[in-house]
C-alpha cells in the first residue's frame, strides 16, 4: 500500500451507502408488516384501528380480536356421515357467523350429495341438489369445507407468505397480505378456498360484530377466504357455529390433546376416514360413521 487513492471505499461512498441502509431498515421496520411478524403492541394498535374502521362502516360496535392460539390445544373436527341429512343449516349458519358475502354469493361449506351405491365419489357428486325434503332415498351427504391439513398444500404455494398454519392447527389467511394470485385455490384438493372477485357485500344489520383479525372480519375484494374453524369462537372456548346449528348433531369439534374430548372418543371408537387420503394432506377434519 503506497497511500495513493485506490479503488477502496471512499468517505462519500461509505456515507451514502450507510444512509441508504439506514433508510431501508427504517422503512421495513416501520412500514406495513405481515401480521404474524408484528410485535404484540403493534397488533393491538392495528386491532384498535380495525375496530374503529368496521364500527364506522357498519354502524355498530365491532370488536376485532387478535386472540392467539391457546397453549396445549390441537383442534380437530369430525363429521358423522351416517347422520348428516344434507339440510344445509350449517352452510347458512357459517355465512352469518363469518360475514360471508351475500352478493355475490360466497359460501365456505359445500354439501355434496352422493349416491350410496357409488360411495364417496367426487366426480359424480352434486352440490346443487334441491328436493322438497332431505334426506333423499339412496343418497348420502358429505359437507366439505377447509380440512385444515397438517401437510397443507395451500400454504406451501403462497408466494407472499400470506397463509400459514397456526400453532393450534388452524390454517389462516392474512387478508392484508394476500395478493390474490389464487395459487392456493389451485393447490387445494378440496375446493375449500374462495376468491372475492368483487367487493363482498353484507347488509349492515346482518354483520356479526364479534370478529377475529384472521377470521370473520369482512374481507376486501381480491383476496382468498375459507373456513377458520370459527377462530373467533373456538379460541374463546366455544364450538364453531356449524356444530351448534346441526339439527342431527353430526358435527363434532374439540382438542386432540384432551383425552376426554369428543374428538378423541370418536377417533378411538368409531370408523374414521379423511377425504383424499392418498394425497397425504393429513387433514384435521375427520369423517366418521357412528353406527
Amino acid at each position, binding site marked *: 500500500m503506497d497511500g495513493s487513492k485506490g479503488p477502496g471505499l471512499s468517505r462519500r461512498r461509505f456515507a451514502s451507502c450507510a444512509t441508504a441502509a439506514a433508510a431501508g431498515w427504517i422503512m421495513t421496520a416501520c412500514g406495513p408488516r405481515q401480521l404474524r411478524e408484528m410485535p404484540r403492541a403493534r397488533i393491538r394498535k392495528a386491532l384498535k384501528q380495525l375496530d374503529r374502521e368496521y364500527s364506522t362502516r357498519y354502524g355498530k360496535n365491532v370488536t376485532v380480536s387478535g386472540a392467539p392460539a391457546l397453549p396445549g*390445544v390441537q383442534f380437530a373436527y369430525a363429521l*358423522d356421515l351416517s347422520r348428516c*341429512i*344434507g*339440510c*344445509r*343449516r350449517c*352452510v*347458512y349458519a357459517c355465512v352469518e357467523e363469518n360475514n360471508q358475502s351475500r*352478493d*355475490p*354469493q360466497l*359460501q365456505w361449506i*359445500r354439501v355434496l350429495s352422493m349416491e350410496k351405491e357409488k360411495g364417496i365419489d367426487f366426480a359424480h357428486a352434486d*352440490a*346443487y*341438489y*334441491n*328436493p*322438497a*325434503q*332431505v*334426506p333423499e332415498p339412496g343418497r348420502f351427504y358429505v359437507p366439505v369445507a377447509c380440512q385444515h391439513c397438517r401437510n397443507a398444500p395451500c400454504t406451501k404455494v403462497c408466494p407472499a407468505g400470506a397463509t400459514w398454519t397456526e400453532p393450534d392447527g388452524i390454517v389462516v389467511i392474512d387478508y392484508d397480505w394476500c395478493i390474490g394470485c389464487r395459487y392456493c385455490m389451485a393447490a387445494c384438493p378440496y375446493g375449500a378456498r374462495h376468491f372475492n372477485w*368483487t367487493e363482498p357485500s353484507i347488509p349492515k344489520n346482518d354483520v356479526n360484530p364479534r370478529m377475529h383479525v384472521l377470521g370473520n372480519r369482512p374481507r376486501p375484494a381480491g383476496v382468498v377466504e375459507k373456513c377458520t374453524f370459527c377462530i373467533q369462537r*373456538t379460541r374463546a*372456548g*366455544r*364450538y364453531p357455529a356449524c*356444530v*351448534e346449528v*346441526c*339439527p*342431527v*348433531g353430526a358435527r*363434532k*369439534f*374439540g*382438542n386432540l390433546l*384432551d383425552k376426554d*374430548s*369428543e374428538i378423541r*372418543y*370418536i377417533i378411538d371408537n*368409531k370408523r374414521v376416514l379423511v377425504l383424499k387420503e392418498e394425497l397425504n394432506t393429513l387433514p384435521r377434519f375427520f369423517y366418521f360413521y*357412528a353406527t
Partner: protein
Amino acid sequence: MAVEVPPPPFSEGIFPCTGCHAGMPVNRNRRVLTEMHTDIVFKHDAEHRWCLDCHDATDRDWLHLASGERISFQESYKLCGQCHGEKLRDWRAGVHGRRTGYWNGAKQYLLCAHCHNPHNPRFRPLAPKPAPLRPTAITEARHGRQ
C-alpha cells in the same frame, strides 16, 4: 351419574299427567286408545310394546325401567338406554346428539326426546336450505347473460 338437561319437551298442557289420571282406575290391558291420546302415532316396536312398558301405571308423572325402578322424565335417557345402550354411551361422551356451549368447558345436552319423538322416533325429513347459486348464475346476475 345424572346429566343436566333442559326440561323435557311435553306437549302443551299435558303435564302433570296426574292432573287427569289421579283418580282414574288403572286398566293394564293392552288396547288401542280411542278416547284420549289418539294423536299419538305409535311406531316404536309397536308389535312388542305399549304405553305401560315405559309409563308408570301407579303414578303417571313418572316413567319406569324394565326393572320397575321409577325414573323422572328428566332422566328418560336411562329408559331409552335400556335398548339403545351404545347410543346412550355415545350420547354421554358427547358424540350422539347435538352439543352447544364450550369445547373446553360446560356443554349443554339435550334429551333423546328433544330430537326423537319417543312414540315415533325416526328422525323426520326436513326441507333443505336453498342450493348454492351456480357460478354462471352469479355472473349473469352481475353482468347479464353473456
